[in-house]
């Protein structure tokens, strides 16, 4: 029983928090800019590599330099929006999807060019598990979940208490009506990119702390993040959090030996779990758990 808790449920929650933070950005971009941003995963990778360089230069803890990386990544993403997405604001959304698809590979190739493709580590040394009776947990897992909860609270406060947050929610619900009431759409779009990019960088840094840093890490997270956004309902940040947690936990639990001694699903297929959940949602409940926008 403790093995289930320590080695399956806790890592599932950690992974779920990472997916959730990434999925908020996907869901908001989908809700406000109306397209699925394939470059989101590689934006995350970019932020992680910036963090890595900052750590190497400053020698500080990754979480200490992460806010700087968030700002830098936000700046770069705003530049990309200007160059590659803004010309298509009035075009069919599929043009934006293709542009983001191209951008995804451009970002990744630049990361591979500047930083190389070898694995990196954000932290050095082996951590000992902290024991609380039979319950054991890695200190970094406590840190990741704690920081993720803080970030989610911040997102919640921003969306409900600030003017720009309310404008974002209004635009996501009904863009025409929001524009009619005098909301500055371009400002809302910039805020969306900033929030999405910052959360993606945070998620990437958490993943980098938990595992390692590599150039494909963002792309590998793309599918689970899409699945989380669809599961929670497109344009619903809270749905994205719930969806991310569900997918992270289910992914980890799928390799628990529920029946007999062997894992229920070979760990090699973990990445398929998110896809299966997403397809099931698309068939039975395309609007998601939180009644998101249905296209």
């Amino acid at each position, binding site marked *: 029983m403790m093995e289930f808790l320590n080695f399956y449920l806790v890592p599932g929650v950690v992974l779920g928090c990472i997916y959730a933070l990434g999925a908020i950005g996907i869901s908001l971009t989908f809700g406000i800019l109306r397209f*699925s941003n394939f470059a989101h995963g590689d934006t995350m990778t970019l932020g992680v590599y910036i963090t890595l360089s900052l750590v190497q230069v400053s020698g500080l803890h990754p979480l200490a330099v992460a806010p700087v990386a968030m700002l830098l990544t936000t700046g770069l993403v705003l530049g990309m929006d200007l160059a590659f997405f803004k010309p298509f604001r009035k075009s*069919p959304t*599929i043009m934006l999807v293709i542009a983001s*698809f191209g951008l995804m*590979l*451009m970002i990744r190739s630049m990361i591979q060019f500047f930083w190389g493709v070898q694995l990196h580590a954000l932290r050095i040394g082996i951590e000992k598990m902290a024991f609380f009776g039979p319950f054991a947990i890695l200190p970094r897992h406590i840190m990741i979940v704690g920081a993720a909860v803080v970030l989610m609270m911040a997102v919640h406060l921003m969306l409900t208490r600030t003017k720009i947050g309310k404008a974002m929610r209004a635009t996501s619900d009904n863009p025409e009506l929001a524009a009619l009431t005098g909301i500055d759409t371009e400002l809302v779009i910039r805020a969306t990119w900033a929030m999405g990019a910052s959360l993606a960088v945070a998620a990437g840094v958490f993943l980098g702390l938990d595992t390692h840093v590599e150039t494909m890490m963002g792309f590998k997270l793309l*599918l689970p993040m899409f699945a989380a956004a669809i599961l929670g309902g497109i344009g619903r940040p809270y749905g994205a959090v719930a969806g991310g947690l569900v997918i992270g936990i289910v992914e980890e639990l799928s390799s628990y030996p529920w029946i007999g001694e062997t894992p229920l699903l070979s760990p090699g297929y973990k990445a398929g779990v998110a896809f299966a959940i997403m397809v099931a949602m*698309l068939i039975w409940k395309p609007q998601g758990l939180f009644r998101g926008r249905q296209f």
Partner: protein
Amino acid sequence: MEQYYGYFIYALSLLTMGGIYSVLALGLNVQWGFTGLFNAGIAGFFAVGAYTQALLTTPIYRDHLGGYNWPIPLAMLAAMVLSAVVAYAVAKICIRLRSDYLAIATIGIAEIVRLIFKNEIWATNGPRGVSQIPKAFEGLPQPWNTLAFLGMVLTIVALIYLALERARTAPWGRVMTAIRENETAAAAAGKNIEGFRLESFVIGSALMGLGGALMAQYLKQIDPNVSDPLTATFLVFVMLIVGGSANNRGAVLGAMLMWTVWSSTEILTSRLPDEFAIRSAYVRVFLIGLILQFILQKRPQGILPETRPKPNPRHRGDNSPVKNSGRTTE
């Protein structure tokens, strides 16, 4: 003399790969060009075709399935059928949803296909892949075998081109255009939107499977990285968009052109010092991406824009000539 022979062989390989990519680009043209379906998982359908070809024709081998001894043409047909079946399953679920969902679902399918080929080691030899795949005409002496294979590829391209040109100008192709340009109007005219989209998606994916079968023969060995989203999916998309979406000639032109660019820049970068050569390979990807963005913004119709079939003169009067509206004016 020997040097020129080398150039000659290189030109043949350029044309052969360009031809194989033409098959893929024509397949994508049916989906994206004709009907406006965004398939981000070309790599997946391509890999299904490649592995079908490989496993049905390779001799018996202890590390993967094999020894079925299927004749090459029959295996190519099977590759098409199997890709079509996978495409049908995907399309059945996603085709009625917004185009984004199809893109996400197809990229997911490509990933799952790669996982299967990587993890089912008993069947596919896992990451080490399948080698010694029989190639058509390989019994002939050099350079005749290369020439004969190129001839086969180009014949296939020509046949697909003729068939798709026929389809494009036929009522079927016109319905596809109608669905792409104005789905509601097409539905109001009594067309079964989902049915037509499904047909288009399945036909396009079958062609991608055929492209995979050709590639497996040409390279003689494949591994799960054949479904690397970069070389398969992205390059084919750039080819079609550069050449001209919805224009079959544009698809072939784009494939030949972009493959030449891709392949010749590889020669350039491989001459650089080692340290730099590896890294500059990524610059090539970046440049291809930049070309895509440039074309998307400055010339979305591509080099050869779409042309609409002329109305049949016998029916003059009951349908006025349709002006080429282009997809961006939607």
